[in-house]
């Protein structure tokens, strides 16, 4: 949510239970302005809070000219001193998903070790074997020429598994884990109302100045809320394309998400605010006041994905 109207926005989302104390709000007000100045962001957003066992991470997001591409994340413990989060590339994501589990501790230099239990070894070995086997298979294939073909694939896989077992377990710091968690949450659960952002013909995404908010009827439907992340689905049916406006319908709709029912849409604060909660990332809350351009989302949770969601619906 925009740091400029933090108090108002927090009032809309705090139905989920978490809010900020007066001291933290005041500190954020001050420090986010300075943050924008120091890092030359065009806009600074308060993104959320990741609850750790000892300390909580406060997360801010800085945006550049392009609202979508230039996202930078920073974290802080006291809402005043901010540290850049390392970028979350694919390698980091895969390493973190293997090594880290459980709650965040609140110490950014805490190291997570890849679990190497005997029982887990076999189950994991298969999954890893597939992933690594492919990668190494390609590398070896190039080096040795293509004489061997399929017969050697199994051997390679076995070799890869052996190499896996011999290699030291992956270690990741909590700072990197935090970067991955924030990146994933932002990717999978950040929401905007339809029409709030436009894409110019040359691809730049900007806030839509003439966005006046969804109507009450529209705000009750998930179709009108979009993922604010790089679109992943390809619109393939002509019927779908017919009603779409390419300048505002360039994002994926929440209603297309699978499994269905991973979003909870409700009216709160005396039915005046439309609130959407993610059940996949418990703690992600989005609000939109219909007929006004006010919208925003905040994450206040433990930073763990709700892997059991399928059982819980």
């Amino acid at each position, binding site marked *: 949510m925009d740091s400029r109207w933090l108090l108002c926005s927090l*009032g809309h989302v705090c*139905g989920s239970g978490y809010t900020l104390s007066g001291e933290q709000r005041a500190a954020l007000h001050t420090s986010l302005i300075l943050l924008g100045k120091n890092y030359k962001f065009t806009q600074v957003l308060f993104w959320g809070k990741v609850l750790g066992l000892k300390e909580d991470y406060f997360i801010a997001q800085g945006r550049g000219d392009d609202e979508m591409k230039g996202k930078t994340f920073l974290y802080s413990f006291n809402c005043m001193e901010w540290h850049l989060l390392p970028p979350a590339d694919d390698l980091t994501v895969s390493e973190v998903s293997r090594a880290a589990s459980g709650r965040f501790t609140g110490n950014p230099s805490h190291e997570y070790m890849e679990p190497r239990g005997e029982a887990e070894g076999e189950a994991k070995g298969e999954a890893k074997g597939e992933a690594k086997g492919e990668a190494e298979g390609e590398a070896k294939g190039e080096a040795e020429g293509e004489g061997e073909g399929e017969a050697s694939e199994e051997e390679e896989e076995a070799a890869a598994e052996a190499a896996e077992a011999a290699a030291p377990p992956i270690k990741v710091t909590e700072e990197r884990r935090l970067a991955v968690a924030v990146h994933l949450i932002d990717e999978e659960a950040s929401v905007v109302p339809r029409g709030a952002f436009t894409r110019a013909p040359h691809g730049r995404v900007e806030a839509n100045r003439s966005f006046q908010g969804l109507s009450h009827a529209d705000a009750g439907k998930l179709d009108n809320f979009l993922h604010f992340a790089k679109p992943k689905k390809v619109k393939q049916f002509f019927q779908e394309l017919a009603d779409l406006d390419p300048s505002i319908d360039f994002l994926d709709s929440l209603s297309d998400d699978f499994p269905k029912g991973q979003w909870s849409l409700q009216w709160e604060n005396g039915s005046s605010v439309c609130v959407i909660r993610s059940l996949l990332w418990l703690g992600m809350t989005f609000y939109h006041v219909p007929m006004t351009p006010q919208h925003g989302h905040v994450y206040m949770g433990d930073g763990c994905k709700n892997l059991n969601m399928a059982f819980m619906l």
Partner: protein
Amino acid sequence: METQPANQDRNNQRQQAAASFKAFMVSNSTKSNQNLYDHLARLLTKVMDERPQNAVDVIEDLSFRVKRELLADFQGTLRGVPLATAAQLLAEQQRLLFSQVDEVEHDDEQLESQYPDVNEISYYLEQAGVGLGREEMQRIFLALKKLVDSHPLQRCRLWGKILGTESNYIVAEIENREGTEEEEQTPTEPSGTGVNKCVYYVCKEPGLPWLKLPAVTPAQINAARCIRKFFTGRLDAPISSYPPFPGLEANYLRAQIARISAGTQVSPLGFYQFAEEEGEDEPEEPSDSYNQNPDFEGVPVSKMAESLSTWVHHVQHILQQGRCSWDKEILSTPPWSTKMSSTLTPQYAVAVLRSNLWPGAHAYACGKKFENVYVGWGLKFAGEGYVQSTPLVVQKDYPSGPDVTEALDASLEEEQALEAAIELKQEELESLEGEEDDEDDYDSLDES
């Protein structure tokens, strides 16, 4: 002299061109019955009226809006009476919260004991980073007052809020003066003791009616331990789960409330004392009734934030079989996180306790004041360790064999075919017998 008529000519030409272009612009569209000239005029008027910044960037939107506004006028006559929106209906309900009641003279003491000062709690909770918003808290405050007014109850407390997928529950906890409830079969603990010590009322929104939750049975608590389900927000929703849950969502909600209360209701050491004297000498049957200790002095906030030893559970732990008597770590996660609400002004801070086993459960203490509140999804922390229990192996059928298989009834055709076959055989037999007698018969049979 020659240039003047030429100029005039050119002027005439220009005017003609302008006039013809204007005529083109004024011509009405066959679809919308509008023309470009009027539209541009309206658009520019709008730009002049509103003077938007960088008007050229938003001119398309403005144009679109001008067109839409024209359309709205046409629709205006067609529109019927608008239906009351949900917000209006709710506002009607909530209006009652703010109605002034003719105050009957109360004793001051009685007023004090009935319902808590939610505003004060809200203030402290906000320091702890927990809250539902000040306005909402105020409404809940009034709703609690309403609840206390309409029920002859002893002590009422805001227990918390449970989030659901369709709507949420605000939960009020009430200690019944006497167990006036009908008692069920033996396994259920009678109301007023154990897990049924308190009665819980829930409402979806402050202002809507409070609904009483049924008493909880041990079977329900045990079943609730095995399942993980989101609440929907409808008390009569069925719980589809494995193992099956004995009851509806109201029962599930009540079971979870009992589990959360047992697991997370804590108080500063020394705040409460047992009702009976020497109650602690009988560890095999700890007492579940306690009173406020009048000599409680309050524990320094910094001490409370530092160590868990200054906090005690005051609600009985639920035993395995679902009844009460007297924390451990789960998945290497400590059960509580402690904290000071402020590091800049620690002398005015409150000590905050956050449960890691029941995410959403919080407690604060400041001087002699403390409170527990739960706001969350009503689910215990499971990490990645939750395993959905699989259904039992399907029981085997009785081995099928000739002794248990039922013979199929023969159809008419089959019967007839069988009859024909029997007849044929008999005739054959007869003919064989006949053959021995004389061979002429055989020929006649063959012909037929």
